């Protein structure tokens, strides 16, 4: 058993040196390994299939470059294809011409929305914005307190007119927050919402109602990097339900390969904008497609080698 894709590919192509072109069977053999690696990285199966087909097209009959061995050549193509789907370059938050800019957070239960609200709040505050966090999860026990604590830690104001734990109307709170922001001159409003399932029509409608009440500039779909094959179902349900403009991948500080990033970007066409990588307020970064691609393939070393080989 070979541990990594890198080892497996190298073994596959032990005897391939000196050939001028990659034959169909060379390519098939390599793509079989890559398919497996992507599935083990939790890339959704339907996405894997499309992806492999696209790579096959690029690779079949491709000339073997002088600088790279066949493994490197195949990995280079696969890597470029991955980065392409992941969005090429990072997209930044769109700020409204007339403040407040409204950012709404949505996602499954426990994905990291409330924590992200604090992180975004601190990040915005550090870049001289004046954000307001809005407690529109009135459902989960003590979600309101959690946001208040998070806001306190971030040094950011929290709008929490209702106690939650089943009391209060999240749509009304969200609507009122815009007035509050205008009155008190907050220039960014971050609306934390309750976790909800893609299959829960009633709660999805509530998210739509919140969205309609605040007319957000950005709806961010927050998703746990550990999610498996269901990423696609869930992302599609949120895309078709509340709709979203960008994706935030959370819990990237673990060792999940994060294939969901690829699945979601591919099926929704929405860019991953932020990477959340820890429980503390500072553990937050812009998303880098190239880093993600090498994480999914688990081949950082090889990619560095390729870069070096091409430079010489």
């Amino acid at each position: 058993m070979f541990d990594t894709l890198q080892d497996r590919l190298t073994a596959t192509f032990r005897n391939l040196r000196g050939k001028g072109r990659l034959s169909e069977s060379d390519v098939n053999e390599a793509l079989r390994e890559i398919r497996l690696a992507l599935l083990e990285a939790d890339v959704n199966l339907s996405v894997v299939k499309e992806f492999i087909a696209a790579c096959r097209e690029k690779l079949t009959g491709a000339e073997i470059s002088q600088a790279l061995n066949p493994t490197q050549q195949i990995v280079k193509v696969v890597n470029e294809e991955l980065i392409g789907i992941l969005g090429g370059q990072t997209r930044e938050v769109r700020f409204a011409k007339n403040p407040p800019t409204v950012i709404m957070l949505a996602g499954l239960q426990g994905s990291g929305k409330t924590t992200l609200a604090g992180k975004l709040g601190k990040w915005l505050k550090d870049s001289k914005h004046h954000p307001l966090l809005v407690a529109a999860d009135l459902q989960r026990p003590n979600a309101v307190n959690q946001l208040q604590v998070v806001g306190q830690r971030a040094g950011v104001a929290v709008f929490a007119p209702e106690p939650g734990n089943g009391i209060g109307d999240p749509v009304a709170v969200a609507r009122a927050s815009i007035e509050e922001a205008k009155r008190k001159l907050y220039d960014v409003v971050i609306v934390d919402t309750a976790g909800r399932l893609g299959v829960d029509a009633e709660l999805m409608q509530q998210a739509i109602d919140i969205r309609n009440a605040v007319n957000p500039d950005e709806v961010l779909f927050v998703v746990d990097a550990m999610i498996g094959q269901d990423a696609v179902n869930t992302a599609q349900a949120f895309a078709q339900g509340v709709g979203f403009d960008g994706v935030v991948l959370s819990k990237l500080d673990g060792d999940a390969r994060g294939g969901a990033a690829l699945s979601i970007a591919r099926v929704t066409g929405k860019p991953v904008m932020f990477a959340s990588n820890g429980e503390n307020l500072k553990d937050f970064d812009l998303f880098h497609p190239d880093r993600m691609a090498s994480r999914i393939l688990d081949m950082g070393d090889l990619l560095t080698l390729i870069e070096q080989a091409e430079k010489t």
Partner: protein
Amino acid sequence: AGSNNALASALLGLLARDRIDESTWDDVEETLITSDLGVGPTTELMGNLRRELSIDGVQDPAVARAKLRAELIKLVDPTLDRGLRITGADGQPGVVMVVGVNGTGKTTTIGKIARLLVAEGRTLVLGAADTFRAAAADQLATWGSRVGVQTVRGPEGGDPASVAFDAVAQGVAQGVDVVLVDTAGRLHTKTGLMDELGKIKRVIEKKAPVTEVLLVIDATTGQNGLIQARIFSDVVAVTGIVLTKLDGSAKGGIVVQVQRELGVPVKLIGLGEGADDLAPFTAEGFVDGLLGA
């Protein structure tokens, strides 16, 4: 319900055709993979099924389907003891520790178990040994107060092991039946936090043995679930698994590998955010969920 429908329709395809051809096999195999069963177990399962069907020369699709179901059930192992270990020795309370990565549903599951135990007439104490996450102790205390159970908590940012110890000590002093200890979510990759978890257990056991360590796994979890399970088990010797959020579209197939590798059964499933949304795990029910039955 996407993967579910996909599998259901693949199985229908299996039934509709009078001969089981390669593309039918592929469909079934692929739809098992989309349940997060993992490539390894799927391949093994398909191998067994092919072998059996070829030995028996099966033509009848209904038989094929029944065999697939039987293979899956065998993989999930209906013979395991899935009872919660909540009885302490020598009149001491049973002590249940609940662990897992961030946001899987640990605190909610404790709320649900508390509800169940109270309904059975047992007395309990909750221990809020998550002193880290914002309002984590408040969240547990809310669950406790809903069922009229005391929650022992410490200062925010305080030592979780000493809160856990206090909770168990209280439980012993009050002579309750069970102490349920909530812990902070932590990624298995964080050695410092995993050491802390080990310490929590050791410190509790100065007072009373931990009778059950429940690892909570979110049904949406992909292949990382297996690594999580390994490391948590190394640190605190997991004795049972809770599979949460099965009310969503994810099937939780990863627990099959987890259960097999750890030799530890899935005991409970979470089916929602409410106090009553907890059910015992059954191999048959799980497999029927996987098969979209």
